[in-house]
């Protein structure tokens, strides 16, 4: 993808980046709607249902409101960093998704299109490292706001992110050991194999079947990384008002919200890719593909469509899972959060590595 890129490859590249950008930009408004309607569903309410079908256009109205609200800058903030903070928290969340494969590749004669904006050799490390940059935005916001509540929020956030990033990173090591790769496309492709054949039922080699404990730790840490309940201490509405984004209004607040949802989306995509086969088709889809009776290029495109939909179904399920958990359980206290991170999750993830190592050594997996 360097010197020899022709016009076609360039346009494919730009198309992929645009696709990711466009999809991610839709995540925040859609998720805001899902969250509001979903919580209403769980709480015997209706939720926004006036504008558009099922209230879907409510988010558009919200966006218009955000854009046209007066863009105030409080007098007591450190202006440069204060303005920079929302950007710093949003950009990494967009960057991480680029490395996640959303479907396998298709061969078009001379060209092969990979459905992954950036097929990096160190994809997993890239996602982890760029993902952890987001915390700088939060720290910056808390500090530059020059407000005690904001500062407390950003302090909570930074310690929380550091503590849970550790278990997040360690929980993935099990996956790396089993698939012996840090390239996300390879990890996704490797999960297509069959782990067990129980009569007609074949259990694929998805990460969750090999790494159940790793999955639990990763998911929990992902909740903490995305600042969602029960780990939404940086915002902790009832304790520190709104935490780091207390002083932000209009679109700048919306940018923080967008970053949160995009982070959620990336986290869901990572959970799907590492533990649920990524773009590997859902059970039954393969036979659907065979039944369609197509061949050649049509067959290939159909396969891509099915893979894409499988991937997005998984991601949407986990997005819903995030919403589901948020409206069910209470919030941790700061010290309990730290206890859980350091005293439970960290030893467990180390144990997971040890167990995986033993299993690999004895050639069980």
């Amino acid at each position: 993808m360097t010197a020899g890129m022709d016009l076609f490859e360039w346009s494919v590249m730009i198309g992929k980046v645009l696709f990711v950008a466009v999809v991610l930009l839709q995540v925040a408004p859609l998720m805001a709607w899902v969250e509001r309607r979903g919580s209403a569903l769980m709480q015997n309410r209706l939720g926004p249902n006036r504008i558009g079908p099922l209230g879907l256009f409510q988010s558009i109205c919200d966006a218009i409101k955000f854009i046209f609200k007066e863009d105030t800058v409080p007098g007591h903030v450190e202006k440069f960093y204060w303005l920079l903070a929302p950007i710093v928290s949003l950009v990494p969340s967009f960057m991480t998704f680029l490395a996640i494969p959303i479907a396998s590749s298709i061969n078009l004669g001379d060209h092969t299109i990979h459905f992954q904006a950036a097929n990096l050799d160190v994809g997993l490390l890239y996602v982890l490292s760029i993902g952890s940059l987001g915390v700088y935005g939060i720290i910056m916001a808390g500090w530059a706001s020059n407000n005690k509540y904001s500062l407390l929020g950003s302090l909570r956030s930074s310690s929380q992110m550091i503590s849970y990033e550790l278990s997040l990173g360690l929980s993935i090591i099990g996956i790396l050991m089993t698939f012996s790769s840090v390239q996300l496309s390879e990890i996704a492709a490797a999960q297509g194999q069959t782990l067990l054949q129980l009569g007609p039922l074949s259990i694929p080699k998805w990460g969750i079947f090999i790494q159940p404990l790793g999955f639990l730790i990763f998911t929990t840490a992902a909740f903490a990384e995305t600042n969602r309940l029960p780990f939404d201490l940086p915002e902790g509405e009832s304790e520190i008002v709104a935490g780091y984004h207390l002083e932000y209004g209009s679109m700048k607040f919306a940018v923080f919200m967008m970053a949160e949802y995009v982070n959620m989306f990336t986290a869901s995509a990572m959970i799907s890719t590492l533990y649920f086969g990524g773009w590997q088709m859902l059970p039954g889809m393969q036979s659907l593909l065979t039944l369609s009776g197509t061949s050649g290029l049509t067959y290939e495109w159909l396969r891509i469509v099915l893979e894409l939909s499988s991937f997005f179904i998984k991601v949407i399920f986990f997005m819903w899972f995030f919403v589901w958990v948020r409206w069910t359980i209470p919030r941790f206290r700061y010290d309990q959060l730290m206890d859980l991170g350091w005293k439970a999750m960290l030893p467990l993830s180390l144990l997971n590595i040890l167990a995986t190592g033993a299993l690999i050594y004895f050639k069980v997996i």
Partner: protein
Amino acid sequence: MHETLGNKHGVHSEHISVDHDPDDLWGDSRVIVNIGPTHPAMHGALRMVAKLNGETIEKSYCEFGYTHRAKEKLGENRTYHQFVVYTDRLNYCSALSNNVTYAMAVERLMGVEVPERAIWIRMICAELARVIDHLICVGINAVDIGAFSFFLYGFHQREEAYTLIEKLCGARLTTSYTRIGGLMADAPEGWEKEVKAWVQKTRKVIDEMDKLLTGNRIWLDRTVGVGVFNKEQCMQYSFTGPSARASGIDRDLRRDQPSMFYKEVEFDVPIGKNGDVFDRYMCRLEEIRQSLNIVMQCADKIKPGPIWSEDKRVRIPDKDVVHNTMEGLIHHFKFFMKGFDVPPGEAYTTFEGTNGELGFYIVSKGDPMAHRMRIRGPSVWHYQALSPMSEGGKIADMVAILGSINIIAGELDR
């Protein structure tokens, strides 16, 4: 380190205390945070100034009075009837309970007997108010700890209860339902049946809420052992109501000083042990169930009959008399413009309000207005304990504690 810092600024090291925290490098890393009066967890307008070490509240003091409306002074400048409206705004989550207590207080001072039906309706009202108030309290406590759905389950039932109350008196929140010597209006036909249906439904909802939250590990972590206030401390701070019972003080005025017909209904008084946030939550949840039982029994025992006392002094003249006779019109005019005289004397009447002992102390000099009107709002005593309870805990604990003692600013500031 301290010495050099002190000298650099040309200050003597007097400010460095001997018993300083060795982890505290600069000696002044405490932050003073002003929590409230406008803070999402400070329901009403309360203010706490907390000295934080990290997230731990080292020292704090609480202030109140941001919603002071001179209720007691107003009581001395309004006729006894006019003051009913003001009692709604004491504990606005259980306005009916205040209405009932106030009416009882004035009736006691005057020696007015209220007919049976009115008393049963008043009892249902008082218990409805208790259910509503406790639903709000446990719900808001859960919201502050982060469980929002729990709150809305209860809120739905609360709205249904308000619909029942609306059928009684036309208002939902500020009811002003009682009158001295009777009630504003009789309960509509079939109201008891609706109340019973509501009780059945609410029982299910309470069980559901119980299942959703009580066993939750995070909830237990956040509430058990938090804000512990033992029996002695509760006595020292004059705790009453569910907050006192959660610490093991077996005192319920409905049972110990039965007013109205509380002798004729059966109910248990739930007692806690540890006096922490969890026990207060459990006490309130159980009290909702007991109150529902009382409402059910009252709804069974209620019979048709008059709702007004026969006492001419307090009875509001009937409309047909007012519209058709001159004497009636004059009586009506005098009644509402001047009010009725209350014989000289003083009386303190208490009732087990939703938050604790709710009392009205009225001194009369024979005028249509009280000479002195004092109100014992239980929140005042509970609020004093917020600082000692939350010191040494985290900010998040303080929020949980404040929710668990159910401070209602209207009752606190009056």
